[in-house]
């Protein structure tokens, strides 16, 4: 698997994590869709954050510099874990994990090689927090035919499954109640994690209730919640996997 390390800014030794980028393809052809994975490896006892970091922390961000004609068409974060502490909760990773970016190469590839660079910014925390960044890059060869890296499939896992259809919800008494379809309400050990910060009380227990033929999950709203959008995305996470759902608020 093609992977490149990068330059660490200002010669600082990274204290909380390391980063590199790996590619699904070693050689790409024109108009090819392919994945690049930014690999972040927290050091012992440190963790980094998911797209919604929860009550504290900062989501990892990746700023790409792309050759002309290359575009990013999708992004997938691996399923995060929940950290609970001092009556609060955050979401992120304390083990090696990946953020996957789907690229499309241009109609014509006139160079023999293309370099894709990125600056990976993260906040590493344990009892204290340190912001860090690293420049990573990868060089891909171009040819008429793409050559895949067979090992890439080994890392393309812990991915949320996209759920077909939207879930409906209502807000009353400072709670968000979501109706769970039968194919989601398969376990009592599941919880809902919005992609947006500031909607739910991250440390409150989410309560699953049932009436004949219907299942609901009741979630306390954040005490100072943001204006809740009419439609938002969330993960529904259980012990085995996670589903990526759209939630629509019924007014």
């Amino acid at each position: 698997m093609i992977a490149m390390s990068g330059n660490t800014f200002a010669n600082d030794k990274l204290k909380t994590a390391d980063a590199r980028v790996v590619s699904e393809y070693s050689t790409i052809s024109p108009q090819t869709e392919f994945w690049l994975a930014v690999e972040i490896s927290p050091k012992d006892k440190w963790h980094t954050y998911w797209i919604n970091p929860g009550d504290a922390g900062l989501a990892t961000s990746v700023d790409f510099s792309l050759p002309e004609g290359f575009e990013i068409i999708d992004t997938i974060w691996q399923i995060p874990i929940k950290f609970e502490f001092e009556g609060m909760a955050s979401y992120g990773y304390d083990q090696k994990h990946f953020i996957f970016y789907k690229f499309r190469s241009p109609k014509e590839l006139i160079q023999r090689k293309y370099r894709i660079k990125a600056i990976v910014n993260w906040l590493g925390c344990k009892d204290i927090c340190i912001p860090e960044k690293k420049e990573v890059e990868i060089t891909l060869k171009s040819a008429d035919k793409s050559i895949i890296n067979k090992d890439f499939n080994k890392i393309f896992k812990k991915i949320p499954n996209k759920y077909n259809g939207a879930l409906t919800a209502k807000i009353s008494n400072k709670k968000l109640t979501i109706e769970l379809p039968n194919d989601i309400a398969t376990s009592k050990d599941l919880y809902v994690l919005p992609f947006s910060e500031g909607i739910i009380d991250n440390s409150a227990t989410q309560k699953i209730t049932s009436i004949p033929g219907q299942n609901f999950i009741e979630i306390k709203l954040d005490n100072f919640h943001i204006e809740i959008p009419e439609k938002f995305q969330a993960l529904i996470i259980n012990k085995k996997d996670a589903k990526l759902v759209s939630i629509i608020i019924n007014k």
Partner: protein
Amino acid sequence: MTTMIALAIIFAFGIAVAPASAESTAELGKQAPNFTLTDSKGITHNLSDFKGKYVVLEWINFDCPFVKKHYDGDNMQNLLKAYRDKGVVWLSICSSAPEKQGNFDNAEINKRIASLKANMNAYLIDADGKVGKMYGAKTTPNMYVISPSGELIYAGAIDSIKSTDKEDVAKAENYIKSALDEAMSGKAIKTKSTQPYGCSVKY
């Protein structure tokens, strides 16, 4: 006897004290919960002492990179000064527990305040975290604005760009500035709450 007199005074004046439970009781649009804390110079303050003035509560931890973002570039100091000059009371509150990041003795706190030239009205010590939990303070910084009538009118982030880069300060909307400017000119506050960002409060 002294305890009996103290209790009588509390009941007579209806002074609220921090509840023992960790449940947050602060709510936007309602009276900000009263509290009594001692500052880094040994002076005790009640929030109710400042009724009639706008009050800003700023949860602080000098060693948090997000707090440093605003103090290293003088953003917080300039904001503080600008609004203290308009009569706003600025209370910095540290809820870091003993042995945790941000918990310093008074000498160190006052040394840091002097070196940063930070001119808050008081740096209040909340080492048992009761007031932090009363307000639901999650991060440092986490900001609250209280109106002269004692109503909580803003809660959340200091500004609109979640980062540790001080270069972002100039590009961001400062929510405290916006809330105070709007409230002081009699306008409705456009953004009453935002998701605070920062290090977790070290309860």
